[in-house]
Structures are given as C-alpha cells and as structure tokens.
C-alpha cells in the first residue's frame, strides 16, 4: 500500500492553524494591555478607532432619545402642571439664594483684590449630556457628548447641580470620558467644611462607599459633615461640594479611622453635567532639597493627576 509523502499539499489552503493564530493574537493582546497600562503609547490608536466608532455610538443613543421624546409628548397635563409648580418653587428658592450670592461675590472680589489672592476658577463652563454610562464592571466611568472639538480638556472637573461628579480623563474629538469620584483609582483632596480639616477622598469601585483616608481616630469628623474640594491639587476648583460623611468607625487599635462617604452629586444618576474650565495656574512649587528630590517628585505627580 503506497504511503503519502510527508509534503503532500493541502487540499484547501487555510493559512496558519487556529492554535497558531490564537497564540499570535493572545500575545498581541497581552502586549497591548501592557503598553496601555504602563506607557500609554496607544492613545493615538484609541483616538482613531474612537472616531470610527463615533457614528455607531451616536446612532445607538437615538432609540433612547426617541423613546424619551415620545414619553414627553404623551406626558399628562397634570404631570406637567405639577412639574411646573415644583420648578417655580425651586426658581424662587434659587433666586433668593442667587441674590445673596451676587452680593457675596462682589464683596468677596473686593476682599480678594485687597489680599491679592489669585482667582483660581474663572467660571467658564460647558454643559454636556451623558451619552452612556460605562459598561465596564471594574471602573466607574461615563462618556459625554462633547470632546476636544468643543474645548474639553483632559483633567477638567465635571460637576452637576449638587456637586463634583468626576474628572475628564480621556478626550476624543467628539466625546470625552469622565472618571467618576467613585472609581477605585480616583482620589480628590477635600476638606471638612465644618472644621476645615484636610484629607483625601478615595473611591472604592462600584457599589462600595468612597472613603476619607488617612484621618486619625481622634479627628473631628461627624456623620453628616459636608466635604468640599480643598483645591490643593490644582485640578478641582476649591469649595465645591463632594460628599457627606455616612459613617465613622473609630478603632483606636488602627492608625486611621474608617470613614465612609456618600457623594452629594448624582454620580450615577445625573444626565446633564457641566465641564468646568481649567483652573488658573497655581504658583510654582518651591525648590525641594536635592536629597529627597526623586521620592517627592513621584508622590507629587501622582497627586497632580488626581488619582
């Protein structure tokens, strides 16, 4: 019986075997992940694919918008009247407060001029709409409908009517990605409004309360205290509401108290957001002594990125 020679040509030429392809693409993916996390070389690729995907993403927001507009069309007269009354009441409330703000602001301006303090936040802001919330189960991000084209810059603070929502972390030509304050890698320098004690708030991921870190057990923190941005990072303008203290657990055996927070902004609800303009440059940091230079620099740059 004749045996086939070893170099018999294939009936069908199919290229490399699936296993070989799998190994090739798996190695490529791992290399990509490594490059993405360690060096951030791939932002250009991401930008290009992002622009190509943009029409699809926009198209997929249309059904939801259509459903919302149909629902709005059929909203009953009574609902509209009730909403109108509520809005009027809110307007009166806000109007009264706003008058106070105008006088306070002018007074503040004069005092600041006297003290020669820089105005850190000019008030330029851009209204954006949430396109969709992040689908990644591991991070807390959302995508908004304005990008570099509209002047959104990476690092800009994002707020809603009640307080800080997060920070712009990646900018595409027509969209921007916002990392929420509840993200595990997000840190904001805050201070307690009541006593002025400073601290940092760190997110803990989906479904977990953010924490106020590095506060000694003896710190003056009470449940219900409001935390505002301290502005020390040069990213968030000072004085914006961030969170309220939800629970304080003091264990003298531990170095730090465990303080759970609840964000005041509708971090996972708000649809309309405001991207704040860049805050004014902080004065340059004084020179560090040469010996501690390397260590200090690493710590500082981490803080500056806002986590």
């Amino acid at each position, binding site marked *: 019986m004749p045996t086939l020679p070893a170099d018999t040509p294939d009936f069908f030429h199919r290229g490399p075997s699936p296993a070989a392809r*799998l190994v090739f693409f798996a190695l490529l993916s791992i290399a990509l992940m490594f*490059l*993405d996390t360690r060096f951030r070389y791939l932002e250009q690729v991401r930008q290009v694919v992002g622009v190509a995907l943009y029409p699809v993403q926009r198209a997929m927001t249309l059904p*939801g918008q259509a459903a919302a507009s149909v629902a709005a069309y059929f909203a009953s007269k009574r609902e509209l009247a009730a909403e109108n009354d509520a809005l009027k009441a809110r307007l009166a409330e806000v109007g009264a407060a706003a008058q106070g703000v105008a006088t306070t602001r002018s007074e503040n301006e004069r005092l600041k001029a006297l003290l020669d303090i820089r105005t850190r936040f000019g008030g330029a802001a851009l209204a954006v709409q949430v396109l969709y919330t992040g689908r990644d189960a591991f991070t807390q991000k959302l995508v908004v409908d304005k990008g570099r084209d509209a002047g959104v810059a990476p690092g800009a603070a994002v707020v809603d009517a009640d307080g800080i929502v997060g920070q712009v972390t990646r900018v595409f030509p027509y969209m921007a990605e916002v990392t929420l304050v509840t993200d595990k890698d997000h840190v904001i320098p805050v201070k307690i409004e009541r006593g002025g004690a400073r601290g940092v708030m760190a997110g803990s*991921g989906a479904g977990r309360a953010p924490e106020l870190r590095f506060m000694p057990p003896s710190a003056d923190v009470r449940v219900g205290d409001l935390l505002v941005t301290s502005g020390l990072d040069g990213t968030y303008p000072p004085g914006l509401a961030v969170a309220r203290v939800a629970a304080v657990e003091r264990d003298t055996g531990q170095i730090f108290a465990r303080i759970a927070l609840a964000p005041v902004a509708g971090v996972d609800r708000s649809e309309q957001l405001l991207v704040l303009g860049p805050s004014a440059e902080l004065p340059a940091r004084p020179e560090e002594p040469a010996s501690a230079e390397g260590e200090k620099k690493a710590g500082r740059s981490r803080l500056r990125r806002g986590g």
Partner: protein
Amino acid sequence: MAIRIPQFSPADPNEVLRPVKGWFVAATLLAALALNLLPLSGYALTLRPDFLALAILYWCIQAPRHVGVGVAWLMGLAMDVGDATLFGQHALAYAVLAYAAEYFRRRVLRFPLWQQAAQVAVLLAFCAALVLLVRVVGGAPLPRWTYFAPALVGALLWPPLSVLLQLPQRPVRTSASL
C-alpha cells in the same frame, strides 16, 4: 405566483443550507457591536448580554471560514475602545472565545439548540472569567456576582438567535413547492 415563506424553526439536520454570504456576516457583527454600544442603565445594564460575543460564537461555529480568531480579535479591539476599557482585554477574550468555538464546533453542532445553549453559557462565562482575571491581575476590585448574569442571558438568547441568523441560508421554499 411563488411567494417565499420564511421558516421560524431550527434547520433540520438533513437540510442542506446555502453558503453564508460574507456581507451578511459582516452586517450581523456590526449590528452586534452597535447593540453592545446601546446606552443602558440599571437592571438593563446588569443583564445586558454580550451580543458581539454571541455573534462571534455563532459565526465561528457555523461559518469558521468567514470568522476566526483574527476577526474576533479585531472586533474585541473595537469593543475596548467603545467601552473605554483596558486596550486588549476584550480582544484577548474574543480571540480565545473564537478558538474555543472552532475547537468545539463539531461537538456543539450535534446537539439540539437548547442543549447548545447550555454549552454556550459555559463558553460565555469562560470569556467573562478571562476578562475578570485580566482586570483583577491589573488591580481592579472584584465585581459583584451579577457580573456573570450576562453569560446566562446570552445563553437564553442563543436558540432564537440561531434560528434568526440561519434564515438567509435556508433553501428557498416557495408556495409553489408546497
């Protein structure tokens, strides 16, 4: 007058299907990608199946000459950008999924659709577990158990999806031939 009649039942094992058209595969993959980009929230987001993984699985099993590891990998890259996630995590997961589908395809095809669905659930859960592994190694917090809910929902969608995607390949049955 011959009228084309669509058949809403799984194909008979003896039925000879027509070859898959390349544009149809591409269109369904694009549609699946678009479905994955639907802006959802709340329960819908928790239960949202990975349509793209399902489509890749389906075509790797039914038409391995059209969709293989390479196409799956490219779709995964698109998904990574759309989801704003780590670059390469979906690409890796989909490439492995495509390989597993090619490896198991003859076995899967022997079973009726509802039994195929059980095997699909395992494959989708494996795909999700791979993403979980990559992210946890990268320092992400562990998600809640609902992380694996989409794999089950995807498996439930497998039988109707199979019938739907098979329609264009069914031999034309007209009213004249009845």
